[in-house]
């Protein structure tokens, strides 16, 4: 009896296996996503027929527009302009948070102040900085840079401080025993210890910076992804608004997957 049952169970498992393998392949190829995408595209086409080109251009036209952007090279100019502003604003945020991190590591009293300031900055709306940037910097590049800086700095700061608080005290004792000076201790123990926190902060910070900076580009500048989206809305080219939106998504995915993942793999090659 038991043997029979066991045999039955085994065949059931065997029968199940091809199905399991199939679903694993499906997951690896993101088949469910592709199915969802197909449904969305069909719905998109249907809805664009109903509402017309201005409200919802069909996918074909959006793709044509996207192809033109790439072929004419227009896309690179504006992507570069956006990335330049984000890199400077965000780079400054990273530099300032590391500098403040060094000071906080020296004096825990400072960390209270920095943490409180971080909380305030975190709850400040993007729009506050965009408006202030317009007043302070007028119609220049510095507006989006400043906005990116103000929005990403609390993220970088809180990550750096959390990292510093979690540095292995036992390694700091090694530094003390072997007479490292403060700078050597920061450079060789603190910084490498907080690298995972910095990379995590950079991933989130850069993504946020990209999203915020394109909004800031609506005002005051004449290049950049955000400017182009607003410009095309103005001239009633909704298809190009969609095309630029796709460009924005691609830039985001590419920087995250290619840049940050390889950076984080490289800095943690010793693991």
């Amino acid at each position, binding site marked *: 009896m038991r043997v029979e049952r066991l045999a039955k169970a085994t065949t059931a498992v065997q029968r199940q296996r091809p199905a399991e393998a199939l679903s694993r392949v499906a997951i690896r190829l993101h088949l469910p996503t592709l199915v969802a995408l197909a449904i969305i595209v069909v719905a998109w086409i249907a809805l664009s027929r109903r509402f017309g080109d201005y409200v919802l251009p069909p996918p074909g036209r959006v793709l044509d527009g996207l192809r033109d952007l790439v072929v004419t090279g227009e896309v690179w100019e504006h992507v570069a302009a956006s990335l330049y502003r984000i890199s400077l604003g965000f780079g400054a945020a990273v530099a300032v948070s590391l500098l403040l991190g060094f000071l906080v590591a020296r004096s825990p009293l400072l960390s209270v102040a920095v943490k409180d300031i971080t909380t305030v900055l975190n709850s400040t709306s993007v729009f506050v900085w965009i408006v202030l940037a317009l007043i302070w910097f007028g119609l220049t590049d510095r507006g989006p840079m400043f906005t990116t800086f103000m929005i990403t700095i609390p993220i970088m700061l809180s990550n750096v401080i959390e990292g510093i608080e979690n540095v292995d005290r036992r390694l700091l*004792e090694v530094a003390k*025993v072997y007479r490292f*000076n403060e700078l050597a201790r920061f450079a060789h123990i603190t910084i490498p210890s907080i690298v995972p926190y910095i990379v995590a902060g950079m991933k989130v910070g850069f993504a946020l910076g990209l999203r915020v900076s394109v909004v800031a580009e609506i005002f005051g500048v004449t290049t950049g992804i955000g400017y182009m989206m607003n410009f095309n809305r103005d001239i009633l080219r909704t298809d190009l608004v969609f095309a630029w939106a796709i460009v924005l998504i691609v830039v985001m995915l590419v920087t995250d997957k290619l840049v940050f993942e390889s950076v984080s793999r490289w800095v943690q090659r*010793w*693991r």
Partner: protein
Amino acid sequence: MKGDKGGPYKLEVRGLSKRYQIPVIEALNLGIRPGEFVCLLGPNGCGKTTFLRILAGLEQPDTGEILIDGEAVDLAVSSQHRIGVVFQEPRLLPWRTALSNIVLCLAPLGIRGREARERALHYLSLVGLRGFEGYYPSRLSGGMQQRVSIARALAVEPDVLLMDEPFSALDPESRQILQDEVVKIWRATGKTIIFVTHSLEEATYIGTRIVLFSARPARIRGSWELDGSSDRVALREELGQLLAQEVRQQQALMAQT
């Protein structure tokens, strides 16, 4: 029981006391001659590690003074007198290779570049790790990591080498091998070593002198010299009984708090 033979001492501790909420070390006096391999033996939690941390400059004593070569020093700041420390764990920087872990600790002494590299390689070979200099700690076994840590401590060419139960986290085979290795290194370098342990077997196996600490607050219960002619079996028995007393007393203390 044989007492101290008297100076001149490499390292001398006079009237050392330390308390946290309760007294941990009280009026402790100890003199260690150059080239001695002293094992500090005592029950767990008796203050041995605190004592070693004070010698390493990681804790400040409340009272008392520490003399190196007859000169009072503040170990937390002094850079003339070098102390090498091997902790219970290897405490290597995981993002640096075996070699560069050692090289990094030579920079504060003003030793850099080729000279630092050569010195680090020399001490890595001394601990039997020639060929592993390019390995990151995560690629080395626990015993090998502890060897790197020993090489690092030796590479600063310290006046005194402090070891805090360095083999307690290793498996018995590695522990045995490293004990022999440390004795070999001690013979080759003539270093003054202070080795904390709670294992009677380890202490009588590797030390030239055993200092027994009492239950908390740590005082010196006795000091025994060991040489080739010592009757280790008899000593082990005598020390075993004394240590057992202290362990019981320490456990009674722990039960109270």
